[in-house]
């Protein structure tokens, strides 16, 4: 009785073994091939590039290298989904996902691009065989790697806005002085010296103002960013002090001319004072709006 039971167990074990062996044989018979060519940016083949095919389900990795013509081939892979990754010295790594069907050869070519600093940094920590990759998260190599040009653009923007900020602060000095000298230059005052001092300070303010504006206008824009927070107020105020800084000297020149002829300031020139005050106030507010941040 016990002997019969043992025989049954052994028979079952043998059956399982046979099933697995048969499965393995079947897989061997219909193994698909995966091959392709690895080229550089110019289209030239890359020799000795490392090509790794990692089974998505099994997480098993198989490696090969490209020959002198950039060709590679895997002949012993089982059907299934694979992540094929290519690495070569001096080039950014590239990978793609392929599905191998039983008995069907598949071709997957790779065009590598030259490595940037970002690629070198990413290579400092190699991923573990089972570890998920950025591509597993749906992040493409172009999203993961920036460029030195992008960084240079940010650096240029930061430098220009720092200049904009400093010049803006410097502009405030002659602007305040211009406002103070206006009391002696305008109204019933007939002092020529005060008028000239006011005009000179106003001119200096205008020159500095337009230099300040240049650095803001010419600072590179960063794609995909929207103005948010105090910078919005800063930009809105520019629509007040910008036209104001054009109108103020024009109106001032007319008023200067009228006063120099011994006339009272009249007509449109009477707006010089109010326009200048609004302009100076908007400029001061714009400066304050972005001053207390880092």
């Amino acid at each position, binding site marked *: 009785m016990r002997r019969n039971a*043992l*025989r049954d*167990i*052994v028979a*079952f*074990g*043998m059956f*399982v*073994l046979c099933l*697995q062996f048969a499965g393995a044989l079947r897989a061997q018979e219909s193994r698909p091939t995966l091959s392709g060519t690895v080229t550089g940016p110019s289209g030239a083949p890359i020799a000795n590039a490392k090509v790794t095919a990692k089974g998505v389900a*099994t*997480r098993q990795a198989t490696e090969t290298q490209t020959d002198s013509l950039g060709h590679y081939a895997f002949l012993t892979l089982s059907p299934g989904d694979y992540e094929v990754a290519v690495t070569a010295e001096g080039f950014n790594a590239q990978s793609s996902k392929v599905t191998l069907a039983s008995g069907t050869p598949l071709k997957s070519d790779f065009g590598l691009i030259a490595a*940037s*600093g*970002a690629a070198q*940094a*990413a290579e*400092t*920590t190699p*991923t*573990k065989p*089972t*570890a*998920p*990759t*950025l591509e*597993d*998260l*749906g*992040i493409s190599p172009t*999203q*993961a*790697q*920036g*460029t*030195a*040009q*992008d*960084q*240079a*653009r*940010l*650096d240029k*923007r*930061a430098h220009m*806005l720092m200049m904009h900020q400093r010049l803006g602060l410097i502009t405030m000095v002659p602007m305040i002085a211009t406002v103070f000298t206006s009391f002696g230059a305008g109204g019933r005052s007939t002092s020529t010296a005060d008028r000239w001092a006011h005009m000179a300070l106003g001119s200096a303010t205008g020159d500095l103002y337009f230099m300040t504006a240049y650095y803001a206008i010419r600072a590179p824009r*960063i794609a*995909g*960013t*929207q*103005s*948010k*927070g*105090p*910078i919005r107020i800063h930009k809105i105020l520019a629509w007040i002090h910008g036209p104001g800084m054009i109108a103020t000297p024009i109106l001032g020149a007319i008023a200067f001319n009228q006063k120099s002829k011994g006339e009272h300031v009249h007509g449109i020139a009477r707006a010089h004072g109010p326009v200048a005050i609004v302009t100076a106030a908007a400029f001061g507010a714009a400066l304050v709006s*972005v001053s*207390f*941040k*880092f």
Partner: protein
Amino acid sequence: MSLRKKLAKQFLAALVLLAVPLFTLADGQWVLQESTLTYHVSHPLKQTDGVSHAAKGKGVCHAGQCDFLIAVPVKSFDSGDSNRDIHMLQVTRGGQFPMITVRTRLPEDASTSATIRADLEVQFAGQAVQYKQIAFQRVVQGGETLITGTIPLTLADFKIEPPSLLAIPVKNEVPVRVESKWRLM
């Protein structure tokens, strides 16, 4: 060797062969459902927080170990001031290194304890820095696992020059609070 022993050995071998696919089936994947990452910058005159909800993450378990990868674009952090955010992007060299990645490997059974201590490898601003034994709290809610904790980042670790306000630089410590919701697939 008796026939009985021989048969028993063959039976054991058959069982082992059967068990291999079963272990493979036990492997799982953790997927990050949603997250909030918040950095905190301190200055004697001002405190600022930047928040991102754009992190993506995955954990792959195999042979009793789970490898996790979390990635978040530097650009996705929002402090409420776009000018400051672009400045942060510049000082952290986000043009050249647009992603922050965090990698960790945990034993599979770590996902059952209330506090997880993880060794993290953070890649940011072109530097890779290891943070050892960082504590994260784990709470299970429904089918999801909430992981919260703080990564004690410093600007010096990543060779980032601290930005200044009125010639006073911000503090070197920029802790990043992590609140994440994971699901085992």
